[in-house]
């Protein structure tokens, strides 16, 4: 069996196991037959399908979105430190979301899509402003320029967030809770809300998988290999913004997944974007489902913000894989 096939089977199996653990473990243990036999234990079936499953699916979608967009941004910017958070897109999304909560904006046309829509508009605006400014500073758009610009805008938007929190009254808990990042008590409506954006964003990135491979060698090289660099770059940036915006919109800022999952995937299965994107998608989903499981069970009945757990679990695992890989390279 080829290495690629093993990679896909392994990642998919991990995801299935993660999903199962995510839905079965908790204050009430869910037996596996509940999946296909709802009548045997209606309470368990209720918990499974109404509470646990939407939460797990949402966690999976958020993790997958962050991981795939992180992988794409790292490839596009040729920088191992890039992720949606570094570039300021998450901050933009947060400002968009917090603004809707702060001003109590509710647009009937969007219905319950108001917050994610604003969040995504915030993400997209930030992305365009960051890139526009970077282009203004340095026409070659070197990665240092883009990243520094991202940091400038992140800190600016961060202070804007702090300002809104300082001025807020009633909605403070809501905003803080949202910012810390969580996928609890969202229900299926949130899943259906972000599903189209995750779908479109992921497809936009996936159809540029070969272009991303070429762009790893630099924009000029990609141009010579026949890539329409300008168009492809915008497609990837818009796809990444859609994914980041929708992920932040439903779960707040969970920063670690977008940075580390692509690296772990790359270390295990190689840097070829034709597989890296899909595998990161699976692994991001698995990681966030597991992290969410830990977040809600570790100090049960209370819950921790899932963002705390992602770094808590992700960092040591990443350190271990990184160490093993580099040692192997050195020997």
């Amino acid at each position: 069996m080829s290495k690629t096939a093993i990679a896909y089977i392994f990642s998919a199996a991990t995801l299935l196991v993660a999903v199962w653990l995510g839905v079965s473990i908790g204050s009430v243990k869910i037996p596996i037959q509940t999946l296909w036999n709802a009548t045997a234990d209606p309470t368990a079936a209720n918990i499974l399908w109404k509470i646990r499953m939407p939460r797990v699916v949402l966690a999976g979608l958020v993790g997958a979105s962050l991981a795939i967009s992180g992988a794409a941004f790292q490839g596009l910017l040729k920088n191992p430190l890039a992720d949606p958070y570094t570039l300021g897109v998450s901050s933009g999304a947060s400002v968009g979301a917090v603004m809707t909560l702060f001003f109590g904006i509710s647009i009937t046309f969007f219905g319950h899509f108001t917050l994610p829509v604003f969040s995504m508009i915030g993400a997209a605006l930030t992305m365009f402003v960051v890139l526009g400014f970077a282009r203004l500073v340095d026409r070659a758009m070197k990665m240092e320029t883009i990243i520094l610009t991202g940091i400038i805008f992140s800190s600016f938007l961060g202070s804007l967030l702090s300002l809104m929190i300082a001025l807020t009254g009633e909605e403070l808990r809501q905003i803080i809770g949202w910012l810390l990042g969580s996928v609890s008590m969202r229900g299926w409506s949130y899943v259906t809300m972000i599903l189209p954006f995750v779908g479109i964003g992921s497809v936009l990135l996936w159809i540029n998988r070969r272009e991303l491979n070429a762009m790893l060698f630099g924009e000029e090289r990609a141009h010579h290999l026949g890539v329409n660099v300008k168009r492809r770059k915008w497609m990837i940036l818009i796809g990444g913004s859609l994914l980041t915006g929708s992920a932040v919109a439903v779960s707040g800022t969970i920063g670690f997944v977008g940075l580390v999952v692509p690296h772990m995937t790359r270390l295990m299965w190689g840097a070829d974007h034709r597989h890296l994107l899909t595998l990161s998608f699976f692994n991001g989903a698995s990681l966030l489902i597991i992290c969410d499981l830990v977040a809600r069970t570790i100090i049960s009945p209370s819950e921790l913000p899932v963002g705390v757990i992602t770094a808590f679990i992700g960092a040591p695992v990443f350190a271990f894989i990184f160490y093993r890989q580099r040692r192997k390279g050195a020997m």
Partner: protein
Amino acid sequence: MLTVKNLTGGYSNTPVVKDVSFQVEKGEVLGILGPNGSGKSTLLKMISGILPKQTGTITIEAQDVSTYSQKEFARKVAVLPQMHTHAFSHSVFETVSLGRYPHQSGLFSTWSKEDERAVMEAMTLTDIMRYKDTAIELLSGGERQRVFVAQALAQEAPILLLDEPTNHLDIAHQQQLLDTIREQAIQKGLTVISVFHDINLASLYCDRLLLMENGQIAKIGAPHDVVKESMVGTVYDAKVKTQPHPELPKPQITLLPHVDVKKLPFTVDLTDFNVTANYVLLQTNKPLKTVSSAVHNPGTGWYQTFVNRHVDANYHVADAKEEMARYLEQEGFHPTDTVGMMTAVQAEHVEFGKYEEDFGSILIAVTAGIGNAVDVAEALSRDRKERIGTINTWVIVNGKLSEEAFIQAMITATEAKTKALQTEEVLDPLTKTVATGTSTDSLLIAATQQGECLPYAGPITPLGKLIGHGVYECTVRAIRAYRKAKEGSV
């Protein structure tokens, strides 16, 4: 194949490339040369579409390139980049596979047999098969560059553009890379346009050269039309000399370093000669430019030690050159800095002479063994048996000789020797006619290359007169000394 017409453009508003027109034929290798900032890389980038043009047209196979889509263009033109680094590592196979990008289309386009063949062929050509699954970051600079050559070849475009492809490569990798590309041009009709920093490499590997100066074409033509002292010297503002390649009809240039150290006047005198039982020796303070037909280090070169070795009349070894080299080393002479001749004449029978004129002086040393004298006019009727006997002539000039002066000096010296044999009535023992030399005569002309410039050395030039007179006189004396020694021994 590719035509550039009145091309102007480059960065921002001030055009770097101005009104450049040229044409490249299928299978041709064109080298673009020019000093830093002359616009050679800009020109290449404009052809490859990285930089915008302001006016002019570029056509490939009679179609304007602006009508090509990015992918169509990449199917026509492949570009080999300068060396660079990147953040994430692909395997060698993945990297080369990217060359197939312009041949793939559609969302789910799969890897075809054609793609596989092109990649395998490119990897075989560049000899990187054994690195197939290695990460490129683990390869050396030279190997990595080969991977990118393979990537460009896998693109299978009829035109290949290169921007200083051999930058940072050692000479073995430079040669491998350029040989591979040259071979593709010959075998597959690949058209190559390459920017070169190294004029000599460009001259060696290109059919035509384009020399840029201030964004314009200073000269375009065959290497021998472009790599000229005057042309290269003016455009690059450097002091250079050209010389022929030792094996190929391609001119090569070399720099003339400007040495600021005061040149101490240096001349060779008779006191620099030494005669021992075994050899006549000349050692000079500085190397002399030498042309000779010696046994050890013949041809042209710069040498400080000159040995005329006495060997026994029965000296006979399979490889005289090898034995001579060993002998010189045994005697403590530096093998790469020494010119060595052989003679059966005793070293003590050497005849010296010093001759002076307004321009300077020349020194002459002759050993004349005439037992093997030959009349060259009757040579055809002779057997091929070699006999012992050699006239070895050294002419040392305190002066600066041109290339032609060296050759004229050899002619003049030879004529003088022949005249000496005539007046001394040396006969060819077989034909009984007057001999013109022996069958194994050697001649050495060496000059300090300092002092007066001596462009010619024909028999009526100041230098030629001295050589003619001196060689004649010394040869006569040497023949007499030889004969006297013979008589004494009989």
